[in-house]
């Protein structure tokens, strides 16, 4: 049986196609202005890779920021549930999940059966979201995907504590003007973001294993800083791109439904 999940985020769109419960294929594209277009493009890409047509898929579940606009989705599921499902499938020992998305970051707690017991979003401040990194990457003219590695080479510890993303950006500009090293600034940014998210997870009471999902999990700088901020071991998803976890969860839930 074939099911699919489509996760349309604010910056990227992802699709996963499942055969029973093995991943046939997955696709990630950067989001278009129009979510419908994003959804269609990413799904076409995944289908093409798998050599399938949309009709072959029995059930498709949409999730993410643009879930309402996905034309071919049979139903929608919240990102919380999808990330929980994906992560638990990947790592049944997972009890706490951290996902930093473009518009918001989430902390999710699971019970031993993978049910969501509690969850929380970032406090009303964009400084705790992926958008923060995007804007900073812009300001520093660094490629978003290279931020992590680049920040690892930092020498000096500096702190960026501004509440407002835009003012934090000003702070970054002035650090550049003070001719601070880009790596040091990046490291400061990673710590600043991680600390915000860490407090959000702590308020749910951390329970291990703690796993991080979402595209930002690929940023080693944030990943390490977050582990430090949480004071526990933080685990990456095994053998899959953490970015597709939401879509994967959606596809799995679609499969649950059809069995």
């Amino acid at each position: 049986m074939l099911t699919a999940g489509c996760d349309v985020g604010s910056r990227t769109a992802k699709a996963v196609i499942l055969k029973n419960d093995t991943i046939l294929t997955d696709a990630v594209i950067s989001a278009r202005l129009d979510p419908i277009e994003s959804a269609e493009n990413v799904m076409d890409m995944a289908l093409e890779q798998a050599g399938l047509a949309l009709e072959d898929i029995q059930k498709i579940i949409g999730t993410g920021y643009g879930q309402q606009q996905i034309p071919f989705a049979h139903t929608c599921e919240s990102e919380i549930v999808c990330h929980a499902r994906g992560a638990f499938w990947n790592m049944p020992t997972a009890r706490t999940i951290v996902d930093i998305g473009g518009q918001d970051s989430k902390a999710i707690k699971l019970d031993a059966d993978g049910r969501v017991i509690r969850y929380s979003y970032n406090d009303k401040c964009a400084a705790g979201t992926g958008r923060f990194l995007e804007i900073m990457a812009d300001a520093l003219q660094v490629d978003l995907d290279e931020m992590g590695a680049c920040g690892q080479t930092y020498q000096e510890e500096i702190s960026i504590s501004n509440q407002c993303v835009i003012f934090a950006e000003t702070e970054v500009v002035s650090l550049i003007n003070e001719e601070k090293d880009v790596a040091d600034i990046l490291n400061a940014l990673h710590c600043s973001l991680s600390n915000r998210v860490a407090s959000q997870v702590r308020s749910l009471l951390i329970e291990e294993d703690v796993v991080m999902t979402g595209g930002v999990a690929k940023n080693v700088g944030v990943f390490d800083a977050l582990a430090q901020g949480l004071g526990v071991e933080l685990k990456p998803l095994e053998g899959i791109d953490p970015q597709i976890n939401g879509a994967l969860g959606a596809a799995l839930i679609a499969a649950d439904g059809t069995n």
Partner: protein
Amino acid sequence: MKKVFTEAATRLNIPAIQKWKEAGGKVVGYTCSFTPVELFYAAGILPVRLRGIDATSMEIADAYYGPFVCSFPKALLQLAGSGRYAFLDGVVISNGCDTMRRLDDCWRKMGQDMPGTAPPWFYYVDVPHKPDGHARDWYVNQIKKMMAAVEKQFHVTLTEEALGRAVRKQNNVRRLLWELEKLRQADDLKVTGAEAYAAIVAGTVMPRDDYAAHLADLIDDIRTRKADVAADRKRLFLSGSVCDDFDLISLIEESDAVVAGENVCFGVRTAEDYVEETGDPVAALAARYLSGSVCPRMLGWYRERASMHMQRIKHLKADGVILQNIRFCDLHGSENGLFERDLEKNGLPALRIEREYGPLVDRGRLKMRVDAFIEQLTSQKKSTLRGNHAT
């Protein structure tokens, strides 16, 4: 610059406190300047005003406090959570403001989550929001209750003699601080804001005798100085929310200005600002700590504060006033609005800034505004300003 003061003002666990602990002394932290520290001195306990200096992140504090609150109590919680306040034998929390009194809730909860981060003893003291009549009687009883609690917790007896001695010692410190204020009122300013501020902040964390001696030294030393540090610079007055942030003072003094005086929670306000040494010491303490209603938490007593404020600013010959408040500090945030209005009625320009407690961010933007403020003072006719001081 006296090293002992700058050290005390910029570090948490200072040598003086370490010495005190090594000698087996107890240390109790307090959060608000309405706490009558005398009774701790009388009990042989060192009262230390809690500060959140160099809390660079809030990952612990934000797990308890919500997003829309002042960063000062948050910083205290963060430091406690990172074990920086492990040297405390107790903490007195009072209703300085909504967020501060909730430090009690948050700190106790954190203590349950992270053993060892809460002090062995918490005491909550209810300070009335008005200074007179039944409110004063109420506070007398609260102080008595707190004394009983201290006696019980630390196995001491608070005799009237001991209390009297403590009052006299603290009065001595207050008189010295007022001496310092008088020196800062001179036409030729002999002490920078950074130096004076360090001395004043140090007074909230150092043992009395030790502190009084150093302060007396400083005052003598200032008397011998010749150079006017304010020569062709502007004299500014700094007012508002609690401020332990020396970068702010130095940022101001990097521009063509000197901080001639400040009104921020601690220090002294008037020459009369001491505890009556005759009669019942507890009644005298209650009277002093509520007198003058020096903090906007004393709701409805703005006029008293404003006139005291104005007097000091005039005597310190300030050219302008910087009104700062911590983000989400409604009390100072709105009172600064009234101050700004009334200061400018009196021909005293004011600059309002909102900041976060702790490490200074956005230095560039802040510096630009301070520079512009000084240029504003220069471009306006000095005569009108000085004229006001004369009256």
